[in-house]
């Protein structure tokens, strides 16, 4: 059978002009798409053949400048890298093209990324060190040391993860996955002297890594496989290792698992909430605890189930623990 070389696709295209429009609207275009085309080709065709007023950002055309990031059916993509046929495989032949963040649209697919750059600047995204201004040799970094960055330096600041993060959507103080990845990238750099300062920045309540909801949207959204959630986990680890973890609900929530596993193997759910919240804070959970208890959802301490071979678990916790709180 001959390979299908073209497909008919219906595009719903987000349109908005901050200066003239009260509300956004969508234009619909039905186009025949060939297998080699990417989303940027479609935007160009619409602009050149149908409506010259369409606005979008484009530059390098090979996935390195990060400027053309937009969303197709809610999936953040680089317009210059995403093949239409791949998107059709996922979503079918009706595709909705929108800016990364509709509420930040200035004109059509162009958004105001000020919040992104503010967060980026917040984590001191540069190497901070005393340098010899007249070096006689190159300042070499060994391959093993370069590996410590875990490819966080591949980030192209496209904003795909930032504008896919649900925690950031709700809490605008949250620093967000892109800036966290940048914080890690410089904190992990052997040439840098400000790692501790950066860890303090991402350790703040409401702003820092503790408010991550663990949805993995950032890992999924990143077109360069930076895996921001992995860097967020690393920052958590570095905060504990540096001994700067504050004694608060978020840190106790993480540490509480180790206590519970040591005692029961399984998690003591009630005790985790009490330990995390403290004896007073836990009271606010009373209404839901009563509702759960009435429906047989609370295990009493004397009935707490335990893992078999618990002695193994206790031994492993003793021998494998690498940090203290």
């Amino acid at each position, binding site marked *: 059978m001959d390979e299908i070389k073209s497909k008919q696709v219906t595009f719903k295209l987000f349109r908005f002009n901050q200066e003239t429009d009260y509300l956004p609207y969508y234009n619909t275009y039905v186009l025949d798409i060939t297998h080699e085309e990417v989303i940027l080709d479609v935007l160009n065709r619409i602009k050149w053949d149908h409506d010259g007023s369409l606005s979008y950002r484009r530059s390098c055309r090979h996935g390195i400048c990060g400027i053309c990031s937009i969303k197709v059916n809610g999936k953040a993509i680089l317009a210059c890298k995403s093949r239409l046929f791949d998107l059709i495989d996922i*979503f079918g032949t009706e595709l909705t093209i929108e800016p990364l963040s509709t509420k930040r649209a200035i004109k059509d697919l162009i958004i105001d990324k000020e919040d992104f750059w503010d967060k980026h600047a917040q984590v001191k995204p540069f190497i901070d060190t005393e340098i010899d201004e007249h070096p006689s040799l190159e300042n070499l970094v060994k391959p093993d040391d370069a590996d410590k960055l875990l490819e966080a330096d591949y980030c192209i600041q496209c904003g795909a993860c930032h504008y896919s993060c649900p925690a950031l959507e*709700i809490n605008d103080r949250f620093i967000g996955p892109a800036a966290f990845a940048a914080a890690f990238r410089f904190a992990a750099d052997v040439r840098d002297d400000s790692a501790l300062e950066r860890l303090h920045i991402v350790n703040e309540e409401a702003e820092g890594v503790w408010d*991550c909801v663990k949805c993995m949207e950032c890992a999924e959204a990143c077109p360069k496989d930076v895996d921001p959630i992995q860097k967020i986990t690393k920052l958590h680890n570095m905060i504990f290792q540096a001994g700067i973890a504050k004694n608060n609900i978020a840190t106790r929530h993480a540490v509480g698992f180790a206590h519970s596993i040591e005692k029961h193997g399984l998690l003591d759910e009630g005790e985790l909430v009490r330990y995390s919240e403290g004896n007073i804070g836990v009271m606010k959970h009373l209404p839901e605890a009563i509702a759960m208890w009435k429906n047989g*959802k609370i295990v009493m301490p004397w009935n707490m189930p335990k*893992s078999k071979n618990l002695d*193994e678990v206790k*031994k492993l916790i003793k021998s494998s623990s690498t940090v203290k709180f």
Partner: protein
Amino acid sequence: MEKLRYALYTGCTARESTPELLKSTLAVAEKLGIELILLDEATCCGASHLQDYDDMLSLVLNARNICYAEKLGLTMVTICNTCQLNTAMTKHRLDTNPALKAKVNEKLAEVGLEYKGTSEVTHFLYAIIQDYGLDNLSQKVNVPLSQFNIAPFYGCHNIRPSELQNISNGGENPYNPTSLDDLIIACGGNNVDYDAKNKCCGFHAELQSPHTAAVLTGNALSGAIDANADWMVTPCPLCHLKLDVQHHSASKAIGREVKLPVLHMPQMVGLALGCTPAELGLQHHVTRVNFV
């Protein structure tokens, strides 16, 4: 069909705050002739928080859990998305990094265990779909759920990151997942489409970031309600705890009353297979299951 056998990693929730999940899982397995051997030795997976504190400890404990499935020579099935993620992530990291595997095995050797990497890890949802088969399932349905509009709620940790889930789970696309929709259809129900079905419920930030968590729960419930759902179904007990128990805080956070019965995935299958409400533990729900 050859009898399907799995090692069941229940996780903590199914033995504590969602006893109905374990009950309904066992009931459905019996109806389908699937043998589940409980891994009573297994510990908590750390629920994606222990690794923030101590990554090595998290790896060792999760590897130990998998060791017990390997001893049985069986695939491990999970019934909690977060157990699935943590276990599959541990397996993936150890299977692709010999040095890390050796380091973890050095610890496990102290208790006479060795992680080999011989057992697969998959969520019960995908075991039903891929191993048992939806056609076989629909043949067993004797109480089709045709009168219900059912909203699937996938739960993040079964579908993201796809790089991992492609290996261990169904390999569906996280931006347009279909497994739970297909299961609803196989049970005779009407699947409801809504934006929040593959989004986060907020569970993991509930203690430290209660407002964020409550808004996310509210978005999920309101999305399903606006799409005319009679009830929701989820493969994850953590999502279930959020959606079933926390509707008060969710309603307050989004300024709108949102309340909808939420069933665990095996409870839905059990209803379609003719299990009684008591067999499925439906009396344990905080938001009353008022339609059976």
